[in-house]
């Protein structure tokens, strides 16, 4: 089924020029992202006009609005970008290397693992720097990934796409339970609940600057291996047949996933379903070649997260709904659709 789609998409590629269509799509997506960013900056507890936003970014005028924009909303916007890019690219990589449409950092337990690492960091080193917490987050995510890979290699997973998702859920549950127990035990529940709900309010510019290099590194690696990922998504036999190196690509892609989702969780908490939905949207729009899917997912991911965060802020003021809840409400129906499609079984 999947293979058929792929071959047809390749043939259609030959008919239209490669760059023409894709560049157009990318420009439209970037335009939407820009537009969304202005809306994002303008709405909130204090509504700020678009003109004001423009001025406070480009001219150095100082007033209440420009302070709000520069110290609160712009960092928040940037974090939204980062999260969107990280989770979406990580999701695309996972779906590519597992050849499983249901793979994503939240569903396969990577996010829960990262949260676990975070809890450990909070308990063991309450004064740790953000980079230190990110490191722990990586380690936690790595642990969860190791668990899922172990289960995936037990044979059963190859036959059933659903199985891997189930195993991931179980791993998530384990890490969540341990995290919960730890935070109750060491009395850091309050600090932790902020993360587990998945929220990006109150992020400072310094934090953004600390995570941004990871974004760059992660996305660059992802782009560099995107061609091989396309081959992987055709199935193991094809890759071997074409002389590809299965294990190396998988390992590199896996590490990139850890890098991206670990750092995103450290700064924003486990925001679910972005990594699941966005790659599907991207594939639907630009076809199945990961050279296009990965950059497009990055832009789409950013759009999805800024839209979700805007919704989270305006839906029941003065309260802010957790961002993770908004993405879950959109993501769950989509997940159900994937799980109940005929091919899923």
């Amino acid at each position, binding site marked *: 089924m999947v293979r058929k789609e792929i071959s047809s998409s390749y043939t259609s590629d030959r008919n239209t020029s490669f760059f023409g269509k894709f560049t157009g799509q990318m420009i439209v997506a970037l335009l939407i992202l820009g537009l969304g960013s202005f809306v994002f900056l303008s709405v909130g507890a204090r509504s700020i006009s678009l003109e004001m936003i423009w001025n406070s970014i480009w001219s150095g005028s100082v007033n209440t609005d420009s302070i709000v924009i520069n110290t609160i909303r712009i960092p928040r916007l940037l974090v939204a970008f980062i999260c969107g890019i990280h989770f979406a690219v990580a999701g695309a990589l996972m779906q590519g290397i597992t050849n499983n449409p249901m793979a994503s950092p939240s569903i396969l337990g990577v996010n829960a693992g990262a949260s676990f690492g975070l809890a450990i960091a909070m308990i063991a080193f309450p004064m740790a720097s953000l980079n230190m917490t990110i490191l722990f987050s990586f380690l936690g995510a790595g642990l969860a990934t190791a*668990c899922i890979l172990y*289960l995936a290699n*037990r044979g*059963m997973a190859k036959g*059933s796409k*659903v*199985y891997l*998702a*189930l*195993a991931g*859920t*179980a*791993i998530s*549950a*384990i890490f*969540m*339970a*341990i995290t*919960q*127990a730890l935070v*109750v*035990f060491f009395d850091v529940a309050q600090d932790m609940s902020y993360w587990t*709900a998945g929220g990006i309010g109150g992020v400072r510019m310094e934090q953004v600057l600390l995570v941004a290099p990871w974004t760059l590194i992660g996305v660059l690696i992802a782009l560099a291996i995107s061609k091989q990922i396309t081959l992987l998504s055709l199935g193991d036999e094809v890759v071997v047949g074409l002389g590809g190196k299965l294990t190396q690509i998988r390992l590199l892609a896996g590490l990139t996933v850890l890098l991206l989702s670990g750092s995103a969780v450290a700064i924003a908490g486990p925001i*679910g379903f972005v990594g699941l939905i966005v790659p599907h949207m991207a594939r639907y729009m630009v076809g199945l070649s990961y050279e296009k899917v990965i950059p497009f997912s990055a832009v789409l991911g950013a759009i999805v997260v800024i839209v979700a965060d805007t919704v989270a802020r305006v*839906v*029941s003021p003065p*309260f*802010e*709904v*957790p961002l*993770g*809840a*908004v993405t*879950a*409400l959109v993501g*769950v*129906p989509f*997940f*159900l659709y994937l*799980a*109940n499609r005929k091919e*899923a*079984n």
Partner: protein
Amino acid sequence: MHQGRRFTLWAIGLLIALAVMFVIHLGTGFSEFSYMDLVRIIAGYGTEWQERIVFDFRMVRSVLAICIGAGLALSGAIFQTITRNELASPSVLGVNAGAGVAVMLYIYFEPANAITTIWKAPLFAIIGGGLAALIIFRMSYRKGRSLSPMTLILNGIAVSTGIHAVQMVTMVTLSPDKFNQINTWLIGTIFGNSWNHVMVLAPIVAIGAIALYCYSTKLNVLNLNEETAIGLGARITKERVTFLCIAVVVAASCVAVGGSIGFIGLIAPHIARRLVGVNHRYYLPVTLLLGALLLLSADWLGQVIIAPDEMLVGIIVALVGAPYFLYVLARTRG
């Protein structure tokens, strides 16, 4: 008969273990009593204060742990039978989430302290849990095709996630008091209930258990594939729905009193099957005893592990249950 003898041995062993655990559980708590004191107090020779502690605080808690553990385990066993799936359990099939959100909405709209209205919370929990389970079953059921176990579980997990999201959206707008009340309840705790709760819960669990035991032949047949079951004269849809209803009512009542305790309904039936096999005549009683024993032990552990503080029993159960779930998953074939 090999199996019959094994069942008798295990049943007796588990009963003894349960009795021992019951006494240990009674002896645990903030004020220290020796076992002699305990015997004296139970026999009616304690001071009024001592009696109050032992009967109204501790024994209520012990009895409830037994009821909830037994109820959850039992309904887990039924879910596993009618879906023919080792991974099914009340929490996986959305009963916990559904019951949780219903009780939360009830607390949300009710004036303060309303959770003490004994009858209302379970009723809401049953409706919510039932609806969630129904939605998940309906979604996974394809006409003319057998119920796919994996899809069912995935749908359950997804719907539960969705319900949790709705819950989070609502919870941020709650007052801190109500937030804490609900949050504690959601994670699962048996503390802070009265004999009235026992009066509501115990009959539901007992009636459910007896009814299910009486129909163990029917349950045995439902455990086979659909065509075989039809051949043996089972009215599949009707029986499934009936047993599902019983299981949902029992599980949701337990959740209403004890909060969202997951995994008991998954582990207990699984261990029971390994001990005495899949014949429901043996399997159901052992499941029930195991569930009671597991939750009672978990609750005791929660009290002593970080004494004088207390770990919510839901966390303890999840810590044991989640790895076990993974283990079951790892050895599941198809």
